[in-house]
């Protein structure tokens, strides 16, 4: 099994890719998944996280087959409304 890590919006552009598939061994939390994909870069304070499309926190558990996502604050709705 594996864990899929996805990036959106400005983070996607900065990471230079849409997703990374990680071997799930040794990955226990969202923070650990971030470390695997970002190396030395600390988890940005305002970054949002989701596990299987539900909002999650840095210490949320990640299991085999899960989809983890990182993205900047959301800006839906009307244009600056």
């Amino acid at each position, binding site marked *: 099994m594996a864990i899929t890590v*996805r990036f*959106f*919006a*400005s983070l996607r552009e900065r990471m230079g890719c849409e997703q990374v598939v990680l071997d799930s061994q040794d990955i226990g939390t969202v923070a650990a998944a971030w470390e695997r994909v970002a190396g030395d870069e600390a988890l940005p304070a305002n970054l*949002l996280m*989701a596990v299987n*499309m539900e*909002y999650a926190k840095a210490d949320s558990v990640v299991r085999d087959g899960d989809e983890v*996502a990182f*993205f*900047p*604050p*959301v*800006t*839906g*709705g*009307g*244009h*600056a*409304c």
Partner: protein
Amino acid sequence: MLVEVRGGSFDPWRELADFQRRMTGEKRGKYGATSIFVGTMRDFNQGNDVRTMLLEHYPQMTEKHLHKIAIEAVARWDLRDVLIIHRVGKIAPDETIVLVAAWAAHRAAAFEAARYLIDELKLRAPFWKKECLPQGERWVSSE
């Protein structure tokens, strides 16, 4: 209840007319109050001219959370019906970005529910906007 993410432009008034026409006999004549909010693409933002906007989203997660928000509103205000349509992709000034509507027996419930729908959508639905300005592109940050 209709919750939709649209890839192409849409006419909010036609959507409302169509949706209301499709309401079942059980709902017809049972609502006295409808509150609607339409968010439209502007041609300016933070002092800059904006030519087009690119709306990105997280497919499936968006729909999942819009549904949740709609169901919460129906439960909290005893609504007759709810509609949410949100645009994604490339958008031009004057085009509709979002449409939310709440049908209720009384106006207080309709207004509060529509406000809840758009406020929660902005807080929780995974959409991101990138503006194309004459001087280049920029991601819109939430205030």
